[in-house]
């Protein structure tokens, strides 16, 4: 059951682009070499030998064998803060940030004000996205009304209005009985149930990972079992009900093991991991920088390594930024008072490329696979670079070095855990649904008409 188009964005005229002598890399089609690529009428019109194509009416972009053309990334977990918290982000600024990060689609979470839990609200949000969104946006309404965990939302009607699935992200479903009802109801309405896993009786009062650093700082810790016991519980429920669940932002080894076991049983579970959990640990919280405060908290080095291994092996299906913007004054407070969340859309590729690909920990093709796979988890087509495919591509300069934040941010908020870090790899151009949605400033000069 699903009637409305799943993703919506403002309609833009299709771009006509000739990307000459770019390194085309798509792990799904197996292509990895220098080619000319012609984009027109919303599609990848042609892929040819280098310097073989000419198109007089196309905008010409010289890759010089150096720039890489990748399938456009997909982020299944962002907070666009609309409605109600537009001082942090809105549909326009959030999708502009997504485009700057090379994303060609994002899924917005429902912990807004009011909570996205009814069909009329979903309809109005999708209408707003059709006016304002740079990059196609999908929505996950709440599992329970008001995220209260008491009563299911009208899931069937929400699906007819275009709900991609459901989640109580931010205020997780605590009751196993309530979640079970949602999983049963999924047989009627479909839609993946996406789960923020946190046992509040274990995490209550905590602001960071429980371990040596929290002991040293005197900050109440959140034990990893607050997440992993809920992953194990809900995987078992999904197995019992033969339902589909997706675990959000895995943060620790124990959770990765629980997912691995569930997949081993053949249960229909998928999961995501965020760049910050792959690159940072609780050691980065020592300075009590509030940009390092998020749920789940940055965990230990052992956990970080287990997540990288999970991403490599496929236990973890995809990368999701959990882009969580907060206004400056909300984060400019003592650590324990600060709200949870880091922005991530504009840094995810460069941070992961710098931290995992350059040191040889992860292959670039695999990273691209995981940065695009989130679409498939929600039954959406995954970007591919092949003739005739919809044009969803990202052009990156893998050699460009920059400092995160030095050019400012497209996002309305600047609470990025990678701010100030030296990164390598910069998104130059993003084409979503056939139109250029982002063009890095430096590129303007390189473009000949």
């Amino acid at each position: 059951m699903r009637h409305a188009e799943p993703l919506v964005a403002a309609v833009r005229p299709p771009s006509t682009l000739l990307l000459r002598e770019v390194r085309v890399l798509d792990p799904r089609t197996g292509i990895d070499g220098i080619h000319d690529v012609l984009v027109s009428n919303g599609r990848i019109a042609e892929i040819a030998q280098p310097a073989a194509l000419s198109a007089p009416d196309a905008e010409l972009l010289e890759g010089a064998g150096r720039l890489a053309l990748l399938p456009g990334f997909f982020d299944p977990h962002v907070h666009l803060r609309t409605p109600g918290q537009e001082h942090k982000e809105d549909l326009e600024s959030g999708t502009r940030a997504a485009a700057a990060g090379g994303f060609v689609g994002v899924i917005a979470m429902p912990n807004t004000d009011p909570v996205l839990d009814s069909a009329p609200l979903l309809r109005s949000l999708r209408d707003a996205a059709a006016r304002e969104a740079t990059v196609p946006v999908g929505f996950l309404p709440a599992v329970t009304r008001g995220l209260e965990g008491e009563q299911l939302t009208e899931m069937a009607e929400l699906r007819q209005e275009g709900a991609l699935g459901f989640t109580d992200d931010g205020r997780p479903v605590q009751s196993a009985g309530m979640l079970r009802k949602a999983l049963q109801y999924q047989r009627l309405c479909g839609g993946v149930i996406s789960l923020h896993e946190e046992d509040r009786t274990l995490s209550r009062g905590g602001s960071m990972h429980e371990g040596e650093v929290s002991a040293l700082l005197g900050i109440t810790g959140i034990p990893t079992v607050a997440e992993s016991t809920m992953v194990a519980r809900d995987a078992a429920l999904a197995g019992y009900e033969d339902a589909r669940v997706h675990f959000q932002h895995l943060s620790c080894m124990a959770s990765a093991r629980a997912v691995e076991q569930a997949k081993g049983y053949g249960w229909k579970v998928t999961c995501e991991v965020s760049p910050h959990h792959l690159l940072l640990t609780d050691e980065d919280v020592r300075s009590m920088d509030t940009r390092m405060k998020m749920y789940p908290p940055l965990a230990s080095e052992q956990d970080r390594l287990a997540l990288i291994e999970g991403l490599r092996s496929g236990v973890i299906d995809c990368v999701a930024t959990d882009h969580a913007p907060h206004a400056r004054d909300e984060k400019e407070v003592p650590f324990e008072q600060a709200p949870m969340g880091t922005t991530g859309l504009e840094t995810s590729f460069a941070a992961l490329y710098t931290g995992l690909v350059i040191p040889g920990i992860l292959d670039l093709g695999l990273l691209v696979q995981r940065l695009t796979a989130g679409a498939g988890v929600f039954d959406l087509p995954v970007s591919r670079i092949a003739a005739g495919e919809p044009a969803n591509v990202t052009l990156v300069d893998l050699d460009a070095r920059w400092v995160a934040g030095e050019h400012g941010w497209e996002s309305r908020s600047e609470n990025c855990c990678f701010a100030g870090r030296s990164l390598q790899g910069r998104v130059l151009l993003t084409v979503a649904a056939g139109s250029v949605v982002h063009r890095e400033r430096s590129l303007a000069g390189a473009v000949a008409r």
Partner: protein
Amino acid sequence: MRHLLSIDDLDRAGIERIIAQAERFSEVSDREIKKVPALRGRMVLNLFYEASTRTRSSFELAAKRLSADVVNFAASGSSVEKGESLKDTVLTLSAHKPDAIVLRTPWAGASELVAGWCSAAIVNAGDGKHEHPTQALLDVYTLQQRLGSIDGASIWIVGDVAHSRVARSNILAFQRMGASVTVAGPPTLIPRGIEALGCEVRYTLDELPSADIVYALRMQRERMSEPWVPSLREYASWYQINARRLTARQVLMHPGPVNRGVELSGEVVDSPQAVITAQVEAGVVVRMAVLYELLAGGGGAASGRALRSAEPVRLQSTPVGGSRAA
């Protein structure tokens, strides 16, 4: 030294310098006119976001004995209750150009943040469950007065370590002065990972007789949102320092205020082993020494992480992933 935010700001020489200065000031307290002009014309602002009687009055007295002007600003009944943020409050009060701000808050790291927002010297008078460095300094001072030195001594810190900023600062300070530290208490009140501070952990008082100094912590019932022990009665039966557990050669300390009959029995509070009132007395002279060090440039910028830059939340510019092996 520009600020005193953590015991980590001081090395052993820095602690010794402050204690030596406190000893010089202790003579002032015995005079009929208990005042020296060292900080005349300087302004000390006490900014307290938590109820405190002894720490605040101790700082106030210390500043006044150094002839500084003192302004007390309590969060209750102020603009804070009207929703003003910590930063806005600090910026507003900074307009009065205080030379030092003595800050107590329920939030770890708040004093470090404030140090980045204004030009005053910041003294951390307790930040959440993190640190309370002047308490640790006055405890070291008290012990040195009593014992001469704590080099090689065994110190047991007993009770609610999880909610105690005093415990964290004292673990660091006692070790820095050459003592070995053991923390003991119910497992629910000993934070996971505390061994990383270099202390031993025990869940019973069986080996308490080996301690030279017994430091009992307050059961911070006001900080407890949930029951951490089955009952205070059971807590007292396992962890109370009483005449049966305390030996004649041991020194007994407590940061106050005491819950008689809970962490300490009435008779040990009044015993000759207890130095609890000496701790209160030491509070004034040690805080005089700290304010003097910060405002009159006592020992210069010699020790520890001394000169801290007055920048806001620092950016780390190490590359992502750094040198970690994966």
